[in-house]
Structures are given as C-alpha cells and as structure tokens.
C-alpha cells in the first residue's frame, strides 16, 4: 500500500512545486524604467508581444527588428512617452491609434522591453 503511494506522492509534490514556482514567477518583468514616475500605464508584456505581432510587426518587423515600412524598434533609443505619442497620433506611414486601450498598454509594456532606454 505504501508502495502505491509513491507515484501519487511524486505527482502531488512535483505539481505543487511547479504551481508554487509559477505563482512566484520570480523573473516576471517589472515596471519598465521609462514608465517609473510618469503617467504612462503599461500592461502585460507577454500579451503585448502578441498584439505587436498582429498589428505592428507588418511594418516594424518581427520582434521590432525593422521591416519594409517602419523603423527598427529593437535597441532603438526611445522613451515610452515618445512611443505612446507615436501610437496615439500616428505620423509618417503610421495611422493614429493603431492600437488603443488595453492593447496599447500591453504593446507599450512589450516595446519597453525591446527598446534601449
């Protein structure tokens, strides 16, 4: 009987450990530096990556590494305020408000992680 408990004990112990680590998720990206002390709200960088791929990557390239119509964002020296202003007002070939609301906040969180601040 005790023998039969070992796989169940392993299942429970490892699952709880994984759940605990996932709840802790120690490497969760923090608030980007550029947003500290400012009024810009940033959202979920993970979701922002997906929104970016769907709405922005067609011009700025996958991962913001540059595309046919938009400039390279990865490694570019940009503040979040500048990025937000560009998203809101548009400019050049970029239409205004290409993403808004939560999508914009999430994209800002993602972009904050790829630009040089």
């Amino acid at each position, binding site marked *: 009987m005790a*023998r*039969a408990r*070992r*796989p*169940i004990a*392993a*299942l*429970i*112990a*490892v*699952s*709880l450990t*994984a*759940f605990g*680590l*996932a*709840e*802790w*998720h*120690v*490497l*969760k*990206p*923090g608030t980007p530096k550029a947003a500290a002390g400012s009024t810009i709200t940033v959202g979920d960088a*993970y979701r922002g*990556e*997906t929104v970016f*791929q*769907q709405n922005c*990557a067609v011009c700025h390239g*996958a*991962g913001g*590494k540059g595309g046919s119509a938009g400039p390279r964002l*990865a490694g570019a020296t940009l503040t979040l305020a500048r990025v937000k202003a560009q998203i809101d007002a548009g400019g050049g070939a970029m239409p205004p408000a290409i993403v808004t609301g939560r999508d914009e906040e999430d994209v800002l969180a993602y972009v904050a*992680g790829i630009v040089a601040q």
Partner: protein
Amino acid sequence: MQFLLDVNKTYTDIVTTVFSSTIAMKAWFATAAVVLVIVQVSTATRMWGHLQRVIRLPFPVVKRIHRWSGRLAFVCTLPVFFHCVFILGFQHPNTRVLVHSIAGSIVYGVFAAKMVIIREKGYPHWVLPVVGGSLAALLVTLWLTSAFWYFTNVRFGF
C-alpha cells in the same frame, strides 16, 4: 532584483537571435516535444505488442527509440517550462490560459509519477500505459492551448 532582470534580458537576447520572439521559441520547442510524444506513444504501443505490422523494428531498437525520444522530449520542454513558470507564471485571464496553466502545473508531476512507476516493479499491468497516456494527453493539451493557438492566431513562423 537587478540580477533577475538581467537574467530575463539575457535569456530574451539569446532566444531572439534565432527566433522572432520568446513566444515563437516556446511554440517551436513545444511542437518538437509533441512530435516526440507521438513517437513515444507509437513506440510504447509497439512495445506492448500492438502496431507490429506498422513498426517493423526489433523490440530492442523500439525500446531504445522510446527512451531517447522521451529524453529529447523532456529536454525540449525545459526552456518552455523556464519561460512559462519563471517569467509568465500561473495566469487565468481566459479559459485557454487557465487550462494551459493547470495542465502545465501538473505535467511534471505526472512525469515524476511515471518515472517512479518505471523504476519500481510490481505495479498492476495497466498502470504504466494509463500514466504514460495521461502524460501524452497533457502534453498535447499544452500544445493545443499554446503553440497551436499561436500558429493559428498570431503567426506561423520562426
């Protein structure tokens, strides 16, 4: 805390030298793991006396393929586990993510249970196929709620 942020940044930098994003990396590693899981299920079925006309290989070869495909599948899940657990964490904004988070939390538990059952003899005949099948089903569920979703909703590419 700065150290942790540096780890995250370094990890992202390494991943994006090959893939367009960390999510794309996860999707492809998960896909590789699921392909290997199919090999696992096929070879396990053959080892239990089925599919003998489909897989015409001697038992020792099938056993070796089964072991190595399992090891490789496990290795493929490690970077995915690292990203999901340490960076993203347990989330539940919608059903897909909730199912993914729950399955992800217990998949290594089932894996550990399977390893215990393999190492220790004397369990009923049906236990190993049931646990192995559950592990395969969990991995397929994880793939469907992550990589498949990514390929069909975001982009199909590296």
